[in-house]
């Protein structure tokens, strides 16, 4: 298998900060740390070319830089792509992330890099690339390339890949099913006994630490406010016009309720695959309480119910998608001058 390696101007022997605007240079062979990498991945993998690009150029002129890099890569055959290691160098790390993400999306090959945990590139790109946990500075070059190379060889040989923590890269937020010889009931009791005995144990379902959002200021006067309904209940028009997935949703829909006082059975239904839908299909307002909101609007408790409700399916949906939906919906709500939201979930 052939591979190509991306490094910055410093490791590409062009120069330091003063050369950070360097446009991409495409070497016919290998230079700098590419040679060390090639030495470690042999014989399963051959690193054929080094791409060198200035950190400022890749981060500030991303579109142009990627265009040039694609023009070169389009002429090459390769089954794997490396970048870095970037250590603690922030722009280099982000540059490696940008290139890895773009290469992975365009060529569908494994992309492997390495950064120190403090590198801002980690947070931004760990879900799209194998980013190995690296040292803080270039003296860790050999130590950082070693696990990248070992992992690449495993991929090339088609060996079973272990979870992120065991392989040594930052978790990508992917859950994989793995067969286990011990049944779940035994494992959970083992875990409990360890917990009681004060011994270390590892949960099988890691819940990522949550960032806290400070509470938004309250609505000053409800009777003048526009309120929107948002829901993860999967209540949609019966033909599910936007084809929202019944589980692990990757999109949301918005539906006009401006002329409705409730959600009639047979016109709306829930497509949520996470519970028995009978009760909600019979009375969709049990999931999206349009009737109650309309009642409060008529009473004058709220100024107006917004003309559309927003909905997706909450079961199995990743946090990344949920956050994306939230950002997209928030933008629409701001554009429509919505003051507050009732979000119903199941």
């Amino acid at each position, binding site marked *: 298998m052939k591979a190509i390696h991306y490094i910055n101007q410093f490791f590409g022997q062009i120069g330091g900060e003063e050369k950070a605007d360097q446009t991409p240079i495409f070497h016919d062979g290998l230079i700098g740390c590419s040679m060390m990498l090639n030495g470690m991945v042999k014989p399963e993998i051959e690193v054929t070319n080094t791409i060198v690009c200035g950190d400022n150029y890749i981060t500030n002129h991303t579109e142009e830089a990627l265009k040039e890099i694609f023009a070169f890569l389009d002429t090459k055959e390769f089954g794997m792509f490396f970048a870095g290691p970037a250590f603690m160098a922030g722009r280099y790390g982000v540059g490696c992330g940008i290139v890895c993400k773009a290469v992975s999306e365009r060529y569908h090959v494994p992309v492997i890099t390495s950064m120190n945990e403090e590198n801002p590139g980690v947070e931004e790109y760990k879900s799209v690339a194998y980013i190995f946990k690296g040292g803080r500075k270039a003296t860790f070059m050999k130590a950082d390339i070693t696990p990248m190379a070992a992992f690449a060889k495993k991929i090339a040989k088609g060996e079973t890949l272990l979870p992120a923590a065991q392989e040594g890269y930052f978790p990508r937020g992917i859950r994989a099913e793995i067969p286990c010889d011990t049944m779940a009931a035994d494992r959970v009791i083992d875990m409990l006994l360890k917990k009681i005995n004060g011994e270390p144990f590892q949960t099988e379902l890691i819940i990522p630490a949550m960032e806290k959002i400070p509470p938004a200021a*309250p*609505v000053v006067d409800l009777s003048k406010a526009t309120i929107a309904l948002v829901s993860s209940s999967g209540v949609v028009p019966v033909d599910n016009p936007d084809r929202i997935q019944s589980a692990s949703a990757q999109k949301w829909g918005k539906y006009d309720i401006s002329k409705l006082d409730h959600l009639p059975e047979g016109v709306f239904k829930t497509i949520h695959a996470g519970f028995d839908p009978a009760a909600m299909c019979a009375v969709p*307002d049990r999931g999206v309480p349009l009737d*109650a909101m309309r009642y409060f609007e008529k009473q004058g408790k709220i100024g107006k119910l917004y003309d559309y409700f927003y909905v997706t399916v909450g079961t199995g949906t990743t946090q990344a998608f949920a956050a994306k939906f939230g950002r997209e919906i*928030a933008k629409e709500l701001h554009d429509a001058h919505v003051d507050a939201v009732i979000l119903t979930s199941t």
Partner: protein
Amino acid sequence: MGKEIERTGIPVTVMCNLIDVAKTVGSNRMVQTVSVPYPLGDPELSKEAEWQLRTSRVGAALDALATKVEEPTVFPSKF
């Protein structure tokens, strides 16, 4: 989803059954619902009782939107 909306300054009341989950994911205003398959209703109840239940919980959620909170807060509903 609610968190990203709240981040932009729009207050959100999350109505859900598993309040602890809502707390874990960082919701700030919460009202508990009846169940997962019928959050704001109950097929076992009479129409009138179900309506009372739904308007009570949605009313509590609306009041929550107009209430200043300093930390994640669960707002009770009469029914």
